């Protein structure tokens, strides 16, 4: 009766543990990487939503405060342009930040391994 055997299960647990440790580096560069990339994308989307950048771009030709005379439209256009540039800069900052995190994620294990080896050189 293999399903009820204690030894069978103990072995299974042991292999699971070993598999766990061996899988770790693979995970770091596959699923772990995808997970962190996904959460960074969510983070960026959240920032975008908070800044309302797309809304500003979509409405670039619509006058602010419903000022439909030509002066209003003109001022609005430039005002919106300034807003869009300013908000884009902020978003760009967050984009760079996210990229840095991803690069850090990729390089960090290599760096740590190198440092450990370095200790023995």
């Amino acid at each position: 009766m293999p399903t009820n055997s204690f030894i069978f299960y103990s072995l299974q647990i042991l292999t699971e543990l070993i598999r766990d440790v061996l899988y770790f580096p693979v995970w770091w560069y596959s699923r772990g990487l995808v997970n962190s990339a996904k959460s960074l994308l969510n983070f960026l989307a959240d920032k975008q939503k908070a800044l309302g950048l797309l809304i500003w771009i979509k409405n670039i030709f619509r006058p602010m405060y419903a000022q439909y005379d030509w002066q209003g439209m003109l001022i609005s256009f430039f005002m919106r342009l300034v807003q869009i540039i300013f908000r884009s800069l902020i978003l760009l900052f967050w984009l760079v930040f996210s990229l840095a995190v991803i690069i850090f994620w990729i390089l960090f294990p290599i760096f740590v391994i190198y440092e450990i080896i370095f200790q023995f050189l």
Partner: protein
Amino acid sequence: MPEEQNNKISIQFITCPTCAGNGKTGKGSACKNCSGTGVIAIYAGRFYYSNLLISAPAIKLRHLKKSLNFILNLSEYIIGLAGLLALAYWVYAASEKTQTLEAFSFWRAKSPLILIFWIGLLADMFVIYRLSEEEAARQKITKPKYNQTAEYDSPNNWSEFNKIKSKYKVEVSGGFSPAALNAVEQAFALANRARHSQVRPIHLFFNLLKDEGAAAIFSRLNIDAVKLIAKLKNQLLAIEAGTEPTELSAEIKEIFFEGYIGALNSGQKKVEPAHFILPILVRDKNLSELLYDLEIDHDKINNVIQWFIISQRLMDNYRLYRKASRFKPSSTMDRAYTAVATPILNHFAYDLTLAAKWGRLELCVGRVDEIKEIFQALESGKNGVLLSGPAGVGKNMIIGQIARAMVEEDVPKMLRDKRLLELDITRLLSGASAAKAEERLLVIIDEVVRAGNIVLYINNIENLMGITAGEEESLELSEVLASAISRHNIICLASVSRDNYVKYIENKPLGDVMAKVEILEPDNNLAIQMLESKIGFYEAKFKVYFTYASIAKAVELSAKYIYDKFLPAKAVDILEAIAVKVSEAKGINSLVGVEDVAEIISQKTKIPLTKITEKESEILLNLEEKIHSRMIGQDEAVEMVAASLRRARAELREEKRPIASFLFLGPTGVGKTELAKTVAEIYFGDEDYMVRIDMSEYQRGESLEKMIGSPEGVLGYLTEAVRKSPFSLILLDELEKAHPDILNLFLQVMDDGRLTDGVGRTINFTNCIIIATSNIGAVYIQDQIKAGAPLNSIKESLINDQLNKYLRPELINRFDGVIVFKPLELKEVESIAELMLNKVKRLLEAKGIGLKYGKEAVEKLASLGFDPKFGARPLRRLIQEKIENEIANKVLADGLKRRDTIVIDGQARVSVEKGRKL
């Protein structure tokens, strides 16, 4: 939420024919046919199976694995921490030696401490890995996507099932919370220890009680856990022990599936132990009977489970909501800055979206369909939606929910990035002439049109109707609004009560341009769930705790006895009143019981408490005895009335008619009115629960108005009395004297149990007892009785020959019983005389004066007062004249003192015996 309850019906179970759901063949190896699955469930186009392995070694090893994991995690944390400490120590040591920053570049240093640090970092990464894998492995309940169902219906055999794509198959035990898994394992351990060959629902149920969450449900239901456990133990002992190894029964597997699907349908992330309760009760009839004895049924448990889900959802929603609401602007501007400021509108309106953003609106439970209907109406091109429903059903709550949805931007496109403003009509109209109000409304509409990001909500829109500026038949306020809506300039939501809709809005321009959405009163279960969402607030505010039974009772009783208001508002009122009262009377942290609810309902509705607490069954069983303690003779009449009332109380009557209606016939003074009074006292608890109407006052057709009121606001005597105390006995004295038109009213009352008064309100008569008395044929009865005719035949001929001259046959037919009262005999009059003297005695005793009389005195009085024509009435007069007057004279003249005794002798003369001096 109601759909959650219905879903369970359609789950289909398939049991493996080879192993009969065991998952094992004879020798204990896995069944070849189903590869150990045993039972599968099909629900909504998906297949549910469980590969949870439950056996003694499996459980032991699962625990072993858990502790190994724990050890591994612990060592990871320790190594990680040690690395950081090592670095810190190294930095500390380096700072001792040097002043330059250069010296701190640890990545260039070689030291055992730094090695530990780097290894620690590896451990930290390992922690991240383990945590996120654990999170991923902890499979939560996955909600199937819309329309994602398998095409095949049900597989005929297992090989077909195995072929089905894995995306349509759901493994349920992965969705179990640790507590649920624990309960299952414990159940197995229990069965195993008791050598039961199968784990049955009762094993699982027994272990559920040990779980905190499930136990909380039973404590809200106010069940005595000790008693329940003792009873369960008896049931468990009754199961036969065997030698075969313990295994899961097919029923338990079905419970897993049903628990999972139940959790799925109520939007839960995990299967908690509580989700097993209902499926267990469905399968174990003994158990549900046992709970039924403790007055717990399916609905009650379900509502309490919903209660917990609701309070959990309240918190979850709040968190999600906070997250989503960050993006909603908190100013009057929209996100694209295209709106225009609306200073005047802001002055007259309340910003609902802003209130929702700051979490000031209450949670709305249920009402998903209604909100969907509102959105659909808007999407289909209507710019106005009218919520019509009785006051108190939660129209404003629905609007609040829409405001919350708008804050989350979870709304149709036309409502996105907009503000919902409630226009305060009282403010709009106050201190303004009609012309001024119209001007204000025009300005507001202009502002709304220009701003372009505003949705208006007008509560009680009927207040706008009929306000005109200028000449008669000029444009009125509502038409100004109607034209703005019809031109698609503004989006407007409004609410109106159902009566006012018919009266003011229907077929008017405003009614035509707006789509009507009917908001109905919720049923009792939904109302209970609505209340449950509010209970937390009242519990925190008044520091009292509600049992489930008290909430359910409040809903049930208010639904049953309060007619002019609607659920859930009327139950909320009651609950608030109870909370205040209980916290005052019993102090803080006390428990609200069912009897508190009954008391408040009785107070508010003037319904006798005994009716609500149902302590009356005893009274009803000995009704004849009770009546006879007040009334002498008339055995047939008393018996018939008592039987009728018992029938009514056992709910064997038609609910739509009054409790009972009788016609009492007989000469004057034989006890007709007395019996009516006695019934009122015994059945309703007091003689005061009686409305007495002298029908001789209603001899003309015009007096109809006096009876039921008129549209001009005159209140009807009958209708008002019954509206204010729906539980009462209506005594119609001398019925035959009333005008036929008035008698026709009672045709409807006795048939439908309701009457519409002059103002148009429907008055409920289903909790009334109607008793009509009449003297018709009094002489005939006396003659026949003297001639010795049986009572039945007298009744027959009375109805056929005498009554129909005065009353229409359909009216006579509608009475539950026509009861003939016999003339009194001397013996009965003697008993009555004694009763009356007793009454006098009680009155005198209150003054400390005694009354003594012998049998002769009673006989003398009876013979003096007896008159076959007038019954007991002359006796009353006689006792007044001969006894009470005499006593009064003596009190005034002799100065009757306390401890004196009045003696009535055999000649019915009154004398005084002086009391002893102190």
